[in-house]
C-alpha cells in the first residue's frame, strides 16, 4: 500500500513539474517526426546524424570534425532565444505576445537604416544601430501595450495586425535605402558589422559574432528584472491576478505597457543582431523570417524562465542549423518545422494532464470513501 502511494506521488510530481513536461513534449515531437520520416520511406537515422553534426561538428559518415557547425548552431540560437524572451517577458505579465515577429522586423529595419546612414565610427556605429533596433522593437511592442491597457484591444489581434504592418513598413523603408534593388540594399560599411574575428578563428570561420554576448547580457537582464526587481514582481503579480495586483497598489496599466515595451526591445535586439551579424547587406524582406513566431514556441517550451528559454532556443537553433545537412542526406528539411509545430501543439494538449490529474484525484477519493 505504502509503495503504491509513493509511486503515485512520483508520477504526480512528474506531471506537475513544468520542466519534466517540457522534456516530454519535446521528446513526443521528435518521436512523431521520426515516425513521419520513416513513413515516407526515408531513414530517420540520417535525420539524427544531421542533428548530431550540427550539435558537435562531428560527421558520423566520414569521421571528420568541423567545429564551424557548433559556431553556426550558437549563432542561429541567438535570435530564437531573444524572441523567446520577448514572448516570455510578456507571458509573465499575463500577455500573449504573437507580435515578436513584427517587433523583430522593426528592429531589423532600423538597424539596417542606421548601418547604412549612420556615422562610420568603429564600435559606436554598431552600438548605435543595436540601440536603435531595441528602441524600435520597444516602440512596436509598446503600441500593443497601450492599446491593451487603455482601449482593451486584445493583444492577440493587435500583434497579428502589427506583424504585417511591420513587414510592409519595412519594405517601404528598405526600398528607399542606398542601392536598393527589389531584394537587397548596398553592402553595410565595416564599422556597422557585428563580426568578431576571435570567434571566427576559434570556430573555423562560422558566422558567430558579438550578438552572442548581447544575447547573454539580455538573458541576465531578463533574469534580474523578473526575479530581483520590484518591476518584475509587479509584472508577475499582474500576470497571476490582474484584479488582486490592482487592489494591492500595483499600477496595472503601466505594468502592461512597460512589459510589452521591454518584450519588444528583446525582439528588436534579435532583429538588429540578425541584420548586422548574419548579413553583409540590408534586406528588402519579401516574407517573415519566422524567428518571432518560433519565439512563441521557445518561450512555451522554456516555461518563460531564463534558463528554460535559453535551452529551448539552443534546441531550435540546432534544428535550424541541421536543416541544410538534412537536405544533403535526402531528408526534407521541413521536418524540423513539423517537429517545432508538433511541440507547440503538444504544449497546447498539456491541459489534458490537468484533466487526468483531476480524474485521478476523484477516483482515489471514491476509493477511500468506499474503503472506509
Amino acid at each position, binding site marked *: 500500500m505504502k509503495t503504491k502511494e509513493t509511486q503515485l506521488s512520483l508520477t504526480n510530481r512528474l506531471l506537475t513539474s513544468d520542466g519534466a513536461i517540457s522534456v516530454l513534449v519535446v521528446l513526443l515531437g521528435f518521436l512523431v517526426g521520426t515516425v513521419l520520416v520513416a513513413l515516407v520511406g526515408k531513414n530517420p537515422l540520417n535525420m539524427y546524424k544531421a542533428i548530431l553534426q550540427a550539435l558537435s561538428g562531428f560527421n558520423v559518415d566520414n569521421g571528420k570534425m568541423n567545429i564551424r557547425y557548433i559556431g553556426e548552431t550558437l549563432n542561429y540560437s541567438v535570435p530564437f532565444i531573444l524572441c523567446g524572451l520577448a514572448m516570455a517577458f510578456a507571458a509573465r505579465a499575463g500577455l500573449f505576445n504573437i507580435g515578436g515577429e513584427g517587433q523583430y522586423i522593426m528592429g531589423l529595419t532600423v538597424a539596417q537604416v542606421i548601418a547604412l546612414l549612420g556615422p562610420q565610427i568603429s564600435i559606436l556605429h554598431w552600438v548605435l544601430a543595436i540601440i536603435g533596433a531595441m528602441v524600435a522593437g520597444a516602440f512596436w511592442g509598446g503600441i500593443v501595450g497601450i492599446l491593451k491597457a487603455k482601449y482593451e484591444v486584445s493583444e492577440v*489581434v493587435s500583434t497579428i495586425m502589427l506583424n504585417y*504592418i511591420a513587414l510592409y513598413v519595412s519594405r517601404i523603408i528598405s526600398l528607399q535605402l542606398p542601392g536598393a534593388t527589389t531584394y537587397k540594399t548596398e553592402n553595410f560599411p565595416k564599422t556597422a558589422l557585428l563580426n568578431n574575428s576571435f570567434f571566427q578563428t576559434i570556430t573555423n570561420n562560422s558566422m558567430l559574432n558579438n550578438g552572442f554576448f548581447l544575447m547573454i547580457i539580455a538573458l541576465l537582464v531578463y533574469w534580474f528584472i523578473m526575479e530581483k526587481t520590484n518591476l518584475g514582481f509587479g509584472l508577475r503579480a499582474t500576470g497571476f491576478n490582474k484584479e488582486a495586483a490592482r487592489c494591492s497598489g500595483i499600477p496595472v496599466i503601466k505594468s502592461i505597457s512597460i512589459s510589452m515595451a521591454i518584450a519588444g526591445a528583446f525582439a528588436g535586439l534579435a532583429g538588429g543582431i540578425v541584420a548586422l551579424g548574419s548579413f553583409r547587406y540590408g534586406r528588402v524582406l519579401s516574407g517573415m523570417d519566422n524567428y518571432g513566431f518560433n519565439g512563441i514556441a521557445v518561450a512555451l517550451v522554456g516555461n518563460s524562465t531564463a534558463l528554460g528559454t535559453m535551452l529551448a532556443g539552443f534546441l531550435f537553433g540546432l534544428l535550424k542549423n541541421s536543416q541544410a545537412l538534412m537536405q544533403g542526406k535526402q531528408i526534407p528539411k521541413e521536418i524540423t518545422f513539423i517537429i517545432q509545430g508538433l511541440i507547440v501543439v503538444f504544449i497546447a494538449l498539456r*491541459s489534458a494532464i490537468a484533466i487526468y490529474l483531476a480524474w485521478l484525484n476523484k477516483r482515489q477519493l471514491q476509493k477511500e470513501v468506499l474503503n472506509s
Partner: protein
Amino acid sequence: MNTLIGMLPSILMIVSPILITAVGGMISEKSGVVNIALEGLMGVGACAAASAHVLMESAGLGTPSIWLSLAIGASIGGLFSLIHAVAAINLNADQTISGTGINLLADGATIFVAQILFNADRTREFRMGMQTDRLGIYPTAYIAIAVVVIAWFVLYKLPFGMHLRACGEHPHAADSVGINVKRIRYIAVLTSGLLAGLAGGCIVLTQTIQYTSNTINGRGFIALAAVSFGRWRPVGVTFAAFLFGTAQAFAIIANNFPSLRVLPSEVFNILPYVITLIALVVFSGKNYAPRANGKPYFKGAS
C-alpha cells in the same frame, strides 16, 4: 469608372477566398472557439488542392479534377482543424497556443508533402486552373456568396444557429436547456476548417499555378481581421472582406492608375491591418465579440 468595373473580376477573385475563410472564422468564434489557425488551414487546403489537381490532371482527368481538388482541399482543411477542436473543446487547451501550433505545423507539413511528392519546395505546376465565365468572373465568387448566404440563414433562421450562438454567448445557459455545447463547438470548428481549406484551394486554382510557401501570405490573418472588423456578423464580415480584398487587389493593380503610382504598393497591403487596428480602438468599450469567445467550457463550474 470603366476601369473600376473592368477591375471587378480581379477584385472578386481576391475577395472570395478571404470572405469564405472569414465566414468560417466567424462561425467558429460565434460558437466560442477562437481559431487563429485560419492561415495554416488555408495553407493546408491550398497545398492539398494543388497537389491533387496536378496528379489528377496528369492522370487525364479534365475539368472534374478542379472540383474534386477543391473538395479534397476542403476535407484536408477540416481534418487539420480537428487538432484544434480536440485541443480547445475536449482538453480545455489555450486556443491561442493550439492555433499557433497548427500555423507552424502547416508551414512545415505543406512543403514537406511537396518535397515527398514532387521533390521540390513547391508543388509541380498544373496546366489548367479554374476557368472564368462569360463575365470574366471565377466560380469562386459564386461559391463565396453561397457560403455567406447559407451561413447567415443557418445562424439566424434555424434553431441550430441559435443554439450555436448561445454556446458562444453563455455556454452554461445553453447547456442547462439541453444543448450539447461540445458537439456544437465541434461542428463549428470543423466548418471553419472546411471553409478555410476550400478557400485555400480557391486561391491556388484561380490566382496561381502551384503551391509555394508564399501562396497564402497572410490572407488567413486578413480573414481573422475581417471577422473582428465585421463585428462577428455576416453582413459586416462580408463588407470587411470586400474592403480588405479590394485593398489587396489595389496593391497588385495600382500600376494601372497614374494617380496611384506615386504611392508604394505596400500602402495598399497595409490597409486591412491598419483599418482593423483603428476600428478596434474606436469600437473599444462596446464589446461586439461573443462573450464566451476563446474561453474553454467547464461543465458544472459556474
